[in-house]
C-alpha cells in the first residue's frame, strides 16, 4: 500500500509545486518508488518544474476517463528511474476530476508505488479538495506571511473535517509544516514572522524550514527539482525534510541569520 501525501497551502505562490517536485525526487532517490500527481487541472505546472513538459502525451483526466492507461500516462523521470509524473490536463476544466475517478487512479497506483505525492492547486475548490481527500499525510506549505498562515490554518480545518479519514472517523491525516521562503535576517530585524510566531498559531510538526534562495528559481528555469542542487541551501533543506519525514532525526538548519559582518553593516541582500 502506498502512503499518500498531499502538498497543500490554500494560498497560491508559496511553493507547493516546488515542494512536491523536491520531496518526490528526494523520496525516489532514497529508493522508494514514487509517483507525483498534478491536481491543478487547466493550469498544470508540475511538468515544467520536473522538466518533462515535452514528454506529456496523456494526462490524469485521460486516465480517469479511460482514454489512456495509467502506464501510458505516467512519465518516468529523466534523473531518477523510481520517480514517475502524472501530469494534469491543460485543456479540461476542474470538473473533469471526480472523487471516484481520483480514488480509482490512486488505488491502482497504490499497488505499485510506495509514495504518492499529490500536488494541490491553490484555493479551496474542487481540485484542492480532491487532492487532499485521500491523503494519509499533509505537508502544509506556509510562508512566514500573514495571509499564508491564515490560509494554512483554514486548510487544517478542511483536512480535519473533509478528508476521507475524517469522514470515516479514522486516524486523522498527519499534518506537517514546511515553512518556505524564510529569510532569517528579516526575521531577526522584526519585519518577518519567525518560526516561533508561526508555530504559536499553527502548532504543527515541523518538517523543515526552506530558506529564501535564488537556487529555487534557477532550478525551475532548468526544469530540475531544487533538491538535486546539493550545493544550495534550499536543496539541502529539502533533503533534510525528506530524511525527517522518513524518521531520521536531523537538527533544523537555516533558522539563524548568518550574514557576515560587512554585509550586515551595509545591508547587503542575501
Amino acid at each position, binding site marked *: 500500500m502506498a502512503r499518500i501525501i498531499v502538498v497543500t497551502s490554500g494560498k497560491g505562490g508559496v511553493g507547493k509545486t516546488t515542494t512536491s517536485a523536491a520531496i518526490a525526487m528526494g523520496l525516489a532517490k532514497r529508493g522508494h518508488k514514487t509517483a507525483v500527481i498534478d491536481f491543478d487541472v487547466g493550469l498544470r505546472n508540475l511538468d515544467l518544474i520536473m522538466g518533462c513538459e515535452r514528454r506529456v502525451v496523456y494526462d490524469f483526466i485521460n486516465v480517469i476517463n479511460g482514454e489512456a492507461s495509467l502506464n501510458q500516462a505516467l512519465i518516468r523521470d529523466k534523473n531518477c528511474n523510481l520517480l514517475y509524473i502524472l501530469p494534469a490536463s491543460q485543456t479540461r476544466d476542474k470538473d473533469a476530476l471526480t472523487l471516484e475517478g481520483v480514488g480509482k487512479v490512486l488505488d491502482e497506483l497504490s499497488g505499485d508505488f510506495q509514495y504518492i505525492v499529490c500536488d494541490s492547486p491553490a484555493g479551496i475548490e474542487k481540485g484542492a479538495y480532491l487532492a487532499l481527500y485521500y491523503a494519509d499525510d499533509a505537508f502544509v506549505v506556509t510562508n512566514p506571511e*500573514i495571509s499564508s498562515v491564515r490560509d494554512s490554518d483554514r486548510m487544517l480545518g478542511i483536512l480535519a473535517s473533509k478528508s476521507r479519514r475524517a469522514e470515516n472517523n479514522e486516524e486523522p491525516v498527519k499534518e506537517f509544516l514546511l515553512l518556505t521562503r524564510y529569510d532569517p535576517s528579516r526575521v531577526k530585524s522584526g519585519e518577518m514572522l519567525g518560526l516561533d510566531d508561526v508555530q504559536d*498559531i499553527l502548532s504543527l510538526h515541523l518538517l523543515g524550514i526552506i530558506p529564501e534562495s535564488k537556487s529555487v528559481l534557477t532550478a525551475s528555469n532548468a526544469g530540475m527539482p531544487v533538491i538535486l542542487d546539493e550545493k544550495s541551501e534550499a536543496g539541502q533543506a529539502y533533503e533534510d525534510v525528506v530524511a525527517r519525514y522518513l524518521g531520521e532525526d536531523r537538527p533544523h538548519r537555516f533558522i539563524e541569520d548568518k550574514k557576515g559582518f560587512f554585509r550586515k553593516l*551595509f545591508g547587503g541582500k542575501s
Partner: protein
Amino acid sequence: MSLLDYFRISKPKSADIAKERLQILVAHERAARNPRPSYLPQLQKELLEVIRKYVNVDQDAISVNFEQDDNQETLELNIVLPDYQQENKTINS
C-alpha cells in the same frame, strides 16, 4: 539592517503587529468553524426532565454552555434550584 538604520527611531516591529492580527483573526475563524455541538438542545431538554423528577424547577433554570479553546472543550452546566424555604411553604400550605 544597515548602519543607517541604527540611528533611526525605533518603531513597533511589523512582525509583531502581524502576529497579533493573525492571532485574533485565527481565533475567530476557528470558533466559527467549530460551532456548538448539535446535541446541546436535546441534552438540555433531557437533563431538565431528569431533574424535574426530583425537584420542581423552571424551564429556564438550566443553562448549558459550551466553550472551546486551543486544547480543551468545556461543557458548563448551571442549574438554579428553587428557594428551599419557599418550596416548604408551598408544600405546607
